[in-house]
């Protein structure tokens, strides 16, 4: 899968209204033009992306931004992105920071409980330098740390471009964006 960091728009990159601090405003699911955001259509069709966050070694900035991205301030519930407590219930892994060998073993064991299809989003410059852990599933997002808006955008792009769309393909039909 392609790296999505380059494709990510910068925070407040022109979609919707923008706040004075150059961050997009998610208000009532409606943009300035009165249309629902494309990324919110998944939620309005009943689909969602369940996310499990794994905090690695490092400064903790990525983990903090990842947890912030799952708050309603950045519109995660409205986009259908929710955090879950068990990797077995997750569609996406968010790996924050560096994964040292002991932790790496645990993460690989944890990934065995994920059902196909699933994706892995690696956050932060320090995590990217170590190389891919899950080659078929992994997408990297550079930044130190990346902003919550970029995390959400990258997550949605990676989920929409996942290689396998489920056994029956029915959930992909529901979630597929226009």
């Amino acid at each position: 899968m392609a790296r999505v960091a380059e494709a990510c728009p910068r925070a407040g990159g022109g979609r919707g209204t923008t706040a004075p601090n150059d961050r997009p405003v998610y208000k009532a699911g409606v943009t300035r033009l009165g249309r629902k955001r494309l990324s919110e259509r998944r939620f309005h069709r009943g689909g969602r992306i369940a996310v499990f966050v794994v905090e690695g070694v490092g400064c903790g900035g990525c983990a903090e931004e990842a947890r912030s991205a799952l708050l309603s301030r950045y519109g995660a519930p409205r986009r259908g992105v929710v955090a879950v407590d068990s990797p077995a219930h997750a569609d996406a892994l968010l790996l924050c920071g560096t994964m040292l060998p002991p932790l790496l073993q645990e993460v690989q064991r944890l990934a065995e409980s994920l059902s196909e299809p699933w994706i892995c989003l690696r956050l932060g410059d320090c995590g990217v330098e170590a190389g891919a852990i899950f080659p078929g599933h992994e997408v990297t997002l550079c930044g130190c740390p990346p902003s919550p808006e970029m995390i959400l955008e990258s997550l949605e792009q990676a989920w929409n471009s996942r290689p396998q769309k489920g056994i029956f393909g029915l959930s992909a039909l529901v979630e597929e964006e226009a």
Partner: protein
Amino acid sequence: MFWGALLRGLLCPGLACAFLVGLFCRGIGAWLGAHLGRRPAAPVWHPLVEVVHWASKARPQGKQQFLSSAAWPVLLGLAALSWAGGMLPWPVLPWPAFPSFSGDLGVYLLLLAVPPLARLLTASLSNDVLSALGVYRYASLEIGRLLPLWLAVTALALNAHGLGMFIDPPATLWSALVRLAAAGIALVTLPWPLWDRDAHDVPLSALGGRALALFRTMESLELYAHVGLIAAMLRSSALLPAWWMVPLAALLAVWLALAMLEWRGRYLPPVVLLHRYTRWLLPLALLLAVLGWWFS
């Protein structure tokens, strides 16, 4: 008569109808609750999409969980709930001749206790530490929920002098009110916490993919059976003038109760919820049982 029954069975088969009624009850309750709480509301078909989503996923690579020991409690729960569903009037809802509450209240309550048991067994058999720890919290919550429900049914049975679900109309107004109150307690003890509650999901933390989809299906059937029990209680009070109002009133009441629970109780920790079940609802149900015997 035969062709009519066959047509009804084909167009509205019991289990599929039960499955859809349960899923849409959850969806409507969550939708109403989200609007009441001014939160983003998922569409009412969200539970159905969720089940399809999990059913379309493959089994995790590292585990053979569903085909091994964790499978039979789920299948046991599904079989029990299908049996419970067959006793109720819902499968013939669109073109009913008359509501047929065949079945026994005692058997029905035992069948309603099977899904929590299936969850507990699955969590215990899954060899997952988090699931095993979550079982303790979940078990106390489920027992706290089921005890008032059993007492409410006891009140109904004491009042009607029998355990059949086809109950004679009440002799006095007080008797009718006792039966209505029993329906109210059954309404409060709906199978809740719902989809996203920690206490509900932790026992299932080792399950994903199709096993989780089967569990969600079992939960929807459980809710369906619960709606049927409330309908039986409402019908026994004979306070509704027409029989067709009974399932409708039960459905509306369940939607509203789920919405209120979703709206007001969303952030209740399991301990507080357990205290509400045991400190408030249980004495109330005990009092109701005494009143049911007194006014019989």
